[in-house]
């Protein structure tokens, strides 16, 4: 559609820097620092090229060597995901591709990935979040898959902070606008609040796509003579330097309006057309290789395609259709205009390719060709402005071994445990604490947010919010499906980033398992402060080590992920917040297990062991503003046993409902089961009711079953070595803890629904 002003850039200003000019003027000063490069890095570029870079080349290196694109501070540590990878035959494509691809059986493969859009979403919440969704969807599309669902993991400052009122409705509105308009169901995610995110919210978007094994596409420009085609939106002056200037530096706390032009603007309608167009191009067999344009735009797509194919590429930058005719080569290379893809096409297929693009009204232009020179060469009105080895920008960026040091205050933080906090003892105290937790923005009803997202479109959503995981049907005949969950807990990670990351992994794993699915693979989005701060670097290295070790123990490959550094306000970093996504396979979604209590007189069984574990708990934080001690103990063998048991129980039809026990403990879990299913319950507490209700011991789930099925389930638990206790019965219109207190469901519902309705407006 022609809401873009069609501009044919013929800005052939004689002042353009060229390869010849660069060789002739070796000492010309260049603004490398303003582009985010250090003097060392600038020197290295000159060394690689044997001359100073042209302005266009400098643009390419500045974005490709940015933290965001090159992973220069994290790369050394991320290798653990490969080094410690469990033996697996489910991975069809792994780390380094646009997204990992996993075999889910019956000839189907699934690709999924989560990515951050934190910094843009703070500067401009609506467009920042919207384009975060758009970007991750294109990553999935580039693998040859049809995107089928999205999820999002969000963190904000306190719900009553003035800026949260600006940021949260904008972010939610942006996700709603873009995802709904694309026709992708939003099937879950997370929403949490903490003061540490007040000046640096987290917006992590996940997309999942489905393909047949044979449809897998890779980002490789192969076959010299093949044509390079840019398709989608025209290139404009939006998002220039987004990867380097915005996503790879800290916010100072004020004056971020100056960075607003670095945020991109999304057009989901164009993206919808681009999706359908690309899928038809794939179907017709017209695509040799393809890459989405995200961070670093044309610079990234051309260097990665050429490096991926081990070839060279010649590109005429002046042939790229523009929205703003005044753009020069460097700006075109760095622009992060949305809704664009770059495809490699055999010459004999170009006409058919352009025909399908025309059918979908997607602009498409041949901008160059694949060569066998091993050089990426670009011209601007006949003048050569780029001549570099593509791998030097795409793969050979600097790698830093940043100093990491355990923070000085870490021991004191752990020593100040929750043991001496006053615990609730009487029925009235326990009741008040349940209502405090349930009525907090963290544990409350998220419907005012999630009802802005369409979770029905495409007609394959079997479970979505408020269930523990999203569950999608892939094959209507066989019932094959996939479950997805994301989790992360900044408080746990602040106390112990190694254990905290494993707890995030364990929770996502458990959330997938409660639906009856078998966990299969992992993605992650690692949100941290500045890597130049040794304390943050220590948190990061511990988190990566924890995740790699945990995945090895659970037998799950890490398929890919994303690192977001510089999440801090001034010198204060956010709590380390690795968000872990787990994908599981469901053999038959018709046997899915939901979380709500829907029938009366079912036995309630608590699976797993409850200990007095309050370090980092929601109760300690909300009741006492206390954060100290150790997070709950990690027992991945117990998690694995629980997951196996849940899969078996679902398959044998032993359980009616299952719900993960985590933030806020059993009390919050039971309240959620009652409210989402509309049925009350009566439970009998053991000797320590505070731990029974509010402890956050891991590896636990609450399930319900018919009284008749109880002996069989308990036998299965014994065989699986999963502790199990019958704790009560469903029914009635109260949540009752025998001998201590009861709350009418109507009162629970009122408390549960209050916080977000007001905030979202």
């Amino acid at each position, binding site marked *: *559609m022609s*809401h873009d002003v069609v501009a044919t850039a013929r800005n052939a200003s004689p002042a353009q820097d060229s390869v010849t000019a660069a060789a002739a003027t070796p000492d010309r000063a260049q603004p490398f620092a303003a582009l985010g490069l250090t003097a060392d890095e600038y020197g290295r570029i000159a060394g690689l090229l044997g001359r100073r870079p042209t302005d266009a080349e400098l643009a390419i290196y500045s974005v490709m060597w940015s933290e965001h694109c090159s992973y220069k501070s994290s790369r050394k540590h991320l290798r653990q995901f490969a080094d410690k990878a469990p033996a697996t035959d489910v991975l069809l494509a792994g780390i380094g591709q646009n997204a990992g691809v996993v075999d889910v059986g019956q000839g189907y493969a699934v690709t999924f990935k989560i990515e951050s859009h934190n910094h843009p979403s703070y500067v401009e919440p609506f467009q920042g979040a919207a384009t975060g969704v758009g970007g991750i969807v294109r990553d999935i599309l580039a693998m040859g898959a049809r995107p089928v669902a999205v999820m999002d993991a969000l963190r904000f400052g306190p719900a009553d902070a003035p800026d949260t009122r600006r940021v949260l409705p904008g972010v939610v*509105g942006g996700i*709603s*606008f873009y995802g*709904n*308009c*694309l*026709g992708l169901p939003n099937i879950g995610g997370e929403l949490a609040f903490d003061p540490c995110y007040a000046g640096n919210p987290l917006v992590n978007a996940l997309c999942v796509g489905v393909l047949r094994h044979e449809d897998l596409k890779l980002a490789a420009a192969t076959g010299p003579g093949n044509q390079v085609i840019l398709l989608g939106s025209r290139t404009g002056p939006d998002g220039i330097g987004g990867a380097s200037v915005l996503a790879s530096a800290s916010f100072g706390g004020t004056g971020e309006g100056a960075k607003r032009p670095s945020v991109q603007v999304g*057009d*989901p*309608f*164009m993206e*919808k*057309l681009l999706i359908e167009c690309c899928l038809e191009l794939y179907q017709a067999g017209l695509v040799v290789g393809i890459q989405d344009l995200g961070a670093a735009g044309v610079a990234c797509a051309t260097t990665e395609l050429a490096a991926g194919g081990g070839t060279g590429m010649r590109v005429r930058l002046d042939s790229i259709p523009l929205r703003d005719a005044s753009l020069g080569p460097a700006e075109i290379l760095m622009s992060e205009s949305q809704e664009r893809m770059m495809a490699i096409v055999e010459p004999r297929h170009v006409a058919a390719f352009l025909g399908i693009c025309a059918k*979908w*009204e997607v602009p498409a232009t041949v901008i160059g060709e694949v060569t066998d020179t091993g050089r990426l060469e670009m011209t601007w009105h006949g003048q050569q402005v780029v001549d570099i080895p593509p791998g030097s920008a795409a793969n050979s960026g600097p790698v830093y071994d940043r100093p990491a040091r355990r923070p000085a205050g870490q021991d004191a933080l752990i020593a100040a445990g929750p043991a001496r906090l006053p615990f609730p003892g009487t029925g009235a105290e326990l009741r008040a604490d349940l209502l405090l937790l349930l009525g907090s923005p963290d544990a409350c009803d998220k419907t005012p947010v*999630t*009802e*802005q*997202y*369409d*979770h*029905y*479109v*495409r*007609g*394959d*959503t*079997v479970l979505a919010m408020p269930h523990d995981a999203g569950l999608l*049907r892939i094959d209507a005949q066989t019932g094959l499906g996939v479950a997805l969950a994301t989790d992360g807990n900044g408080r746990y990670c602040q106390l112990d980033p190694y254990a905290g990351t494993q707890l995030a992994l364990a929770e996502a794993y458990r959330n997938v398992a409660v639906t009856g699915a078998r966990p299969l693979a992992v993605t992650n989005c690692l949100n941290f402060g500045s890597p130049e701060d040794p304390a943050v670097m220590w948190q990061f290295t511990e988190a990566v080590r924890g995740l790699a070790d945990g995945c090895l123990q659970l037998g799950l490959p890490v398929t890919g992920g994303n690192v977001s550094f510089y999440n801090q306000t001034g010198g204060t970093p956010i709590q380390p917040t690795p968000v872990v996504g787990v994908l599981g396979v469901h053999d038959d*979604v*018709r046997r899915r297990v939901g979380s709500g209590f829907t029938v009366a007189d079912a036995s309630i069984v608590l699976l797993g062991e409850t200990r007095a574990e309050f370090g980092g708990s929601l109760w300690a934080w909300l009741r006492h503003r206390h954060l100290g001690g150790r997070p709950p103990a990690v027992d991945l063998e117990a998690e694995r046993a629980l997951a196996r048991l849940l899969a078996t129980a679902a398959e044998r039809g032993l359980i009616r409902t299952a719900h993960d026990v985590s933030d806020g403990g059993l009390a919050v879990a039971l309240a959620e089961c009652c409210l989402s299913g509309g049925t009350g319950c009566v439970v009998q507490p053991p000797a320590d009711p505070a731990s029974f209700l509010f402890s956050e011991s891991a590896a636990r789930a609450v399930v319900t079953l018919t009284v008749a099925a109880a002996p069989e389930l308990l036998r299965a638990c014994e065989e699986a070595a999963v502790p199990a206790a019958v704790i009560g019965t469903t029914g009635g219109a109260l949540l009752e803890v025998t001998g201590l207190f009861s709350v009418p469901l109507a009162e629970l519902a009122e408390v549960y629904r209050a916080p977000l309705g007001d905030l*979202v*407006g």
Partner: protein
Amino acid sequence: MTARIGVVTFPGSLDDRDARRAVQYAGAQPVELWHDETSLHGVDAVVLPGGFSYGDYLRCGAIARFAPVMGQIVQAASRGLPVLGICNGFQILCEAHLLPGALARNGGLRFITRDVTIRIENDTSPWTRQYRAGQDIRVVLKSGEGAYMADPQTLARIEANGQVLARYASGNPNGSQRDIAGVVSEDGNVAGLMPHPEHAIDELTGPSADGLGFFASVLQAVAIP
């Protein structure tokens, strides 16, 4: 012979796949109709599905009504072809003046996805004859501009003519006048509904299977004796 029911895909249509599945569930054959076609390929009825046709630019449905396929649909509708517009399809039918009234921004100003109960009022249209007047059904509402609006004279007329197809029965979710969730044309063959019956055809993936009645009804209505 199986009835053939066309489902139009505009650029930006999203629930076209769901509508085709609902047609299939009801036992009819779905026929894909592309927005720039000038033939309806002899279909027995047409569904305009939900989505954001042309990105909802300008105004919901305002561009889609000028699509070549709409010219054919307007002509066929005047000859009695059953046409159902769901959500964005309803907006398009209003823009095309095949249905009275218009759809405005939700009262709460936000997009909402919600399971809603609607009460069928007109059980004689080709799309609702398998329901009975007064019957409550559970379907899905998901829209940002779903508030039904019309001037007082139009409202009085459609009420008097029995053109109110269904009303929201579990609270008014979006500020629609007189709780109106759907209307039919004077002749009764063209229907528009803001909630989505095609998302309520199977309890596995929807709040109920109540919505299947729309598709079963039209199948009955166009049955060749």
